[in-house]
């Protein structure tokens, strides 16, 4: 177990180093910072001094090491566009993105699992066919298009829900939440549906195929032979055994949700990190881009790590496998 954890942590560290390398590469590939900081009439001496001050004359590995060192402390410098500290900017925007992603993930689970169970149990009913067809269409539609149409229907035509923004937020320390006000709750409905649809279809299809697989096994037949009710067989035995892979996939998708929030946030002008990132890309605001990349990668890696460890804890077969093949 310990060896497994250590190996996974090492892998995660390698991923983070690679991402840091890419983020660091942004600084070197996108323009010359000295030129943009000094302007046109700087003398070569000015340039040389600034280069030395900024540490740009240091060898590559030394620059990279100091970049990583600062990144670990959360220091990414000043935003070129807004002139404020990147860490403060991200901290302001983070609650919006996390609340949106969290709501979307919950929606995907709460709706996706029952739909999957239903389509597996009533395989030939017309409603199952409808759900499956919709899910195929849902996978083939770009997220932003779904968002645009939700805006068109519920905000423009019906006028029930706001089409952009986060509504009124309440501050709890540095965290701002939209869950406590009515306009905040209204504002989160459309973006979270948009963001959750793809994962929802994924969960539904996964639960369906896993259920179909499990329902064919011997222990289900045995449970039926014991005279258990359908409900107990379906939900107590079958569903419980499908949940492990479902939780794994959803856990892994959670990082994806946070990343895909970029598009949803752009459509709904949701004041989260994704919107900040896209604006940063358009203005070549490199410190913000680098910090966002590192932060999302960190969240993604941590989630992956937790899911892997959970999986290891939940599924005893993994442990037996290792014990028999490893030694």
């Amino acid at each position, binding site marked *: 177990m310990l060896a497994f954890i250590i190996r996974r942590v090492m892998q995660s560290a390698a991923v983070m180093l690679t991402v840091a390398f890419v983020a660091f590469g942004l600084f070197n590939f996108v323009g010359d910072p000295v030129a943009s900081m000094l302007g046109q009439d700087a003398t070569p001496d000015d340039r040389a001094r600034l280069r030395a001050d900024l540490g740009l004359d240091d060898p590559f590995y030394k620059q990279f090491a100091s970049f990583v060192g600062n990144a670990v402390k959360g220091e990414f410098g000043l935003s070129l566009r807004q002139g404020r500290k990147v860490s403060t900017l991200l901290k302001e925007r983070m609650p919006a993105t996390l609340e949106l992603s969290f709501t979307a993930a919950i929606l995907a689970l709460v709706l996706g699992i029952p739909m999957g169970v239903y389509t597996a149990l009533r395989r030939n009913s017309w409603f199952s066919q409808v759900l499956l067809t919709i899910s*195929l269409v849902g*996978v*083939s539609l*770009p997220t932003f298009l779904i968002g645009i149409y939700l805006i068109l229907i519920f905000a423009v035509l019906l006028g029930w829900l706001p089409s952009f923004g986060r509504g009124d937020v309440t501050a709890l320390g540095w965290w701002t939440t939209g869950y406590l006000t009515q306009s905040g709750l209204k504002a989160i409905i459309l973006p979270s549906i948009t963001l959750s649809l793809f994962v929802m279809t994924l969960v539904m299809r996964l639960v369906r195929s896993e259920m179909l697989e499990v329902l064919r096994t011997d222990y289900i037949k045995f449970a039926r032979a014991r005279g258990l009710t359908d409900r107990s067989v379906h939900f107590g035995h079958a569903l419980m055994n499908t949940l492990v892979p479902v939780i794994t996939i959803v856990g892994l998708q959670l990082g994806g949700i946070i990343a*895909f929030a970029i598009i949803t946030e*752009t459509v709904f002008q949701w004041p989260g990190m994704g919107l900040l990132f*896209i604006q940063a890309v358009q203005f070549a605001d490199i410190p913000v881009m680098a910090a966002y990349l590192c932060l999302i990668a960190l969240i993604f890696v941590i989630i992956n790590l937790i899911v892997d460890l959970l999986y290891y804890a939940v599924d005893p077969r993994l442990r037996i496998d290792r014990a028999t093949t490893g030694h």
Partner: protein
Amino acid sequence: MVERTAAPEAPPESDPVMPRALADIAPELDPALAAPSSLREFWGDFSQNRGAVAGLAMVIALVLVAIFADWIAPHSPIEQFREATLTPPSWHEGGTTKFLLGTDALGRDILSRLIHGSRLSLFIGFISVTLSLALGVVLGLLAGFLRGITEIFIMRLMDVMLALPSLLLAIAVVAILGPGLINAMYAIAIVLLPHYVRLARAAVIGETGKEYVAAARIAGAGPLRLMFNTVLPNCTAPLIVQATLGFSTAILDAAALGFLGLGAQPPTPEWGSMLADALEFIQRASWVVTWPGLAILITVLAFNLMGDGLRDALDPKLKR
């Protein structure tokens, strides 16, 4: 973004008695193994799936539209009819038959833009999938044949790439290379790469232990011939399936990048950027959003249906 992988450890066994490699070396030995018969067999399996045939028909129609775009399109995709901005589709009130699907905010004919856009979308899909497939197959073959340090290096690199959300990776690549259609294609190719590498490697490792490979080796085939002539033809099925599904991923990703302003730049008639331009007019003129969206939906659906059908026909083991 769709992330699907055809089963990595399911190499096709079109003919277990005589593998295709032998037919390559000495085709005159068994005329029954010539291409037409296996093609007919494949078509028999494929045509049973009605959705797949519909998908294939749509794909063929799209390819034809893309090839003959210059002749089919009624107007130039970038010509602006300043007196006719935001004209509704012809069957709406105020629409004219001159602009069948209406015009956008700059007075450009939407139908013509869509027709020319199909060219771009297929081009994006084709280039990024081809790039990614070619590079992925080579890397996968190398990893599967050489093993050892090469394999560890290649596969760890792929793991790192898979460990990042695909869209984020694509945006990062575009941010480094700069926005634009060509760079978006490179970004998509890079994002798709790990799937092909893993598939190719798994297939190669599954095949190399088999006797026909040993036979070819004993017959004196060099490593390159072993890799590309003996083993590769027997690993193609999962790669073809993944490539078809990769088309739809590529088109969706390109649309997303275009929507974010990182892909095709104006006035290129790319579907995703058409949608981004149309967003502000959604209240007054919903058709400017509807048509490009429909075009993306139909194209991606067609490739998804075709990919599913191909998988069932080529990889019977995957059938549920």
